[in-house]
């Protein structure tokens, strides 16, 4: 049970801004008070007097001194976030929701399917998996974006490719002359993934349409519904299971999720919208 006011953010100072793509920036924040999160949990990030929006931190949950939030310009609040200056303060509420059950991944191969800005929460998961890689058999990360320019975290991809037990596959919908990897929607990457499906867990995070077809493809590959973890995107406003905006059937995505197994939510309405 909490003791502080659940609606009151703690202050966090913006110490660095990383340009990931023309529309995406990563904000590095240092909270003024003790703050930690588990991978897959999300926060509400506030601009004082302007508004707030939900984000899953993209940094390692093991780094408790600072956290990184990757923001795609999508509206009024995120536009303001892109214009924040180093040294300015933002507000953080959370962490909220149910993240990835990492212990379920132990002794398994992990197949991660990500698209677009869905890489943000997945990067936090990948950091965490790397930290416990002695307990994980293998991690295969398949990532798709619209164009090579939209591929985010480029230095991190290089780092990940050099990490033992980690394999990275990428695709773009539309290639340019510089692109040497796959072309097509992200699910094409699954065609030649070699994975021990019965001893594997799958994670999907990205735009709804990609999550839909990604999940169907994983089922085709033989993944049981309870071994596919989806990170759902709904309009999460309060983060507390109260405001009703993120309701998905009998679940509040903000409190009961945002990470669910496909088995848990497959019959819920508007799953892929």
């Amino acid at each position: 049970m909490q003791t502080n006011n659940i609606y009151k953010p703690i202050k966090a100072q913006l110490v660095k801004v990383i340009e990931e793509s023309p529309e995406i920036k990563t904000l590095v924040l240092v909270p003024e008070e003790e703050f930690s999160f588990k991978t897959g949990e999300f926060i509400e990030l506030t601009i004082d007097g302007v508004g707030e929006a939900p984000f899953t931190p993209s940094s390692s949950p093991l780094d408790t001194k600072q956290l990184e939030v990757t923001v795609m310009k999508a509206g009024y609040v995120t536009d303001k976030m892109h214009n924040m200056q180093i040294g300015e303060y933002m507000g953080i509420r959370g962490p909220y929701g149910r993240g990835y059950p990492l212990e379920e991944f132990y002794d398994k191969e992990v197949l991660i399917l990500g698209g677009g800005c869905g890489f943000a929460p997945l990067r936090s998961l990948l950091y965490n998996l790397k930290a416990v890689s002695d307990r994980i058999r293998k991690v295969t990360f398949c990532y798709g974006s619209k164009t090579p320019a939209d591929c985010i975290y480029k230095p991190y991809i290089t780092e990940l490719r050099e990490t033992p037990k980690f394999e990275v596959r990428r695709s773009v919908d539309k290639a340019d002359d510089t692109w040497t990897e796959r072309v097509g929607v992200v699910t094409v990457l699954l065609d030649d993934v070699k994975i021990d499906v019965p001893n594997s867990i799958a994670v999907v995070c990205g735009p709804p349409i990609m999550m839909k077809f990604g999940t169907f493809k994983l089922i085709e590959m033989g993944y049981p519904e309870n071994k596919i973890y989806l990170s759902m995107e709904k309009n999460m406003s309060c983060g507390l299971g109260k405001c009703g905006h993120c309701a998905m059937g009998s679940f509040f995505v903000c409190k009961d999720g945002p990470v669910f197994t496909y088995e848990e939510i497959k019959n819920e309405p508007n799953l892929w919208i």
Partner: protein
Amino acid sequence: MRYYIVAETEWSQHLNRFLSEYELYAPVKNTETESYDYEQITAETIDSIYYNGNTPTTPLKTFYLPIKENVVNIKENQPRIVIGVPNCDLAALNILDNIYLDDDYIDPCYKQNRDNTVIFGKDCYTYKKSCHCTSYSLKPYPQENCDVSMSITDGMIYLCPMSDKGESLLKKHKITDNKSVDTIPETIISKRQDVVNNLQNQNKNLPDEKNTRISIEKSSEELWDKYSDKCVSCGACSFICPTCHCFLLIDKEHFEKVRSVDVCQYPGFARVAAGEDPLHYLNKRFKYRYLCKYCYKPDMFKALACTGCGRCIDACIGKIDKNELILESFK
């Protein structure tokens, strides 16, 4: 159960004593519209209180969830007594308490408002055409969630404490020194039963909550298109519903936040940053509200999310009759 008896002629003295410590709210009749609504009562207006009328226009929830409230810079509020709360509003607290007093995240404003309020539940001896609490296994008199239940017959008021808060209020004001009985008088039982019978008769074709759920789940999209065609997304049904709880957080300077009532019937309610919106179309939003009331919330909280108060029927400017829709889906 113990019922303390106060003569109606002495009751205003007690109310005057309450007024020294509490703000007092009670239903007052609007003679033009023949409706009742809560008003703040003063020593001068005590006589205007209308006891045992039907459902007040405004639901009880507005005492706990005002239209707008700063939820970071919280104002302390005066203790208050709300008299004349019908059972449909009391039953609605099962949903609201589950959401706002959830152990993981207790809402500080709701809690303060709830703690500071003493609720006097009332028997409904009259009812509206839209009242249908008995269809959902509720009674038109207090069953739970109030601090004191209040029934009036033959010039006598029977006050039954139903919580520690209610008990201590009656004790403090020496009402517990009055004559008491351990069973409610026959005349009250008979009045209550008359209303139950009349409501059952009025709604004899209306299915119970379980069958309503089944018929809604099986209903055709044409039904929703037909009824939503008259909906103008004004949100009155949700504003007036005793269990609707949705809100928007509005950011203010100094990291303050104002909670403002929000309604799933408004366009954009469920839209996400990337633009997807599962409730974009009016017919989807309209149906969603019924699914929320009869399917989703009962599953989540094992409680009724429609308590049969009928306010959504009375308030609809498109003249959409929820029960008519349910009857049509039940055919």
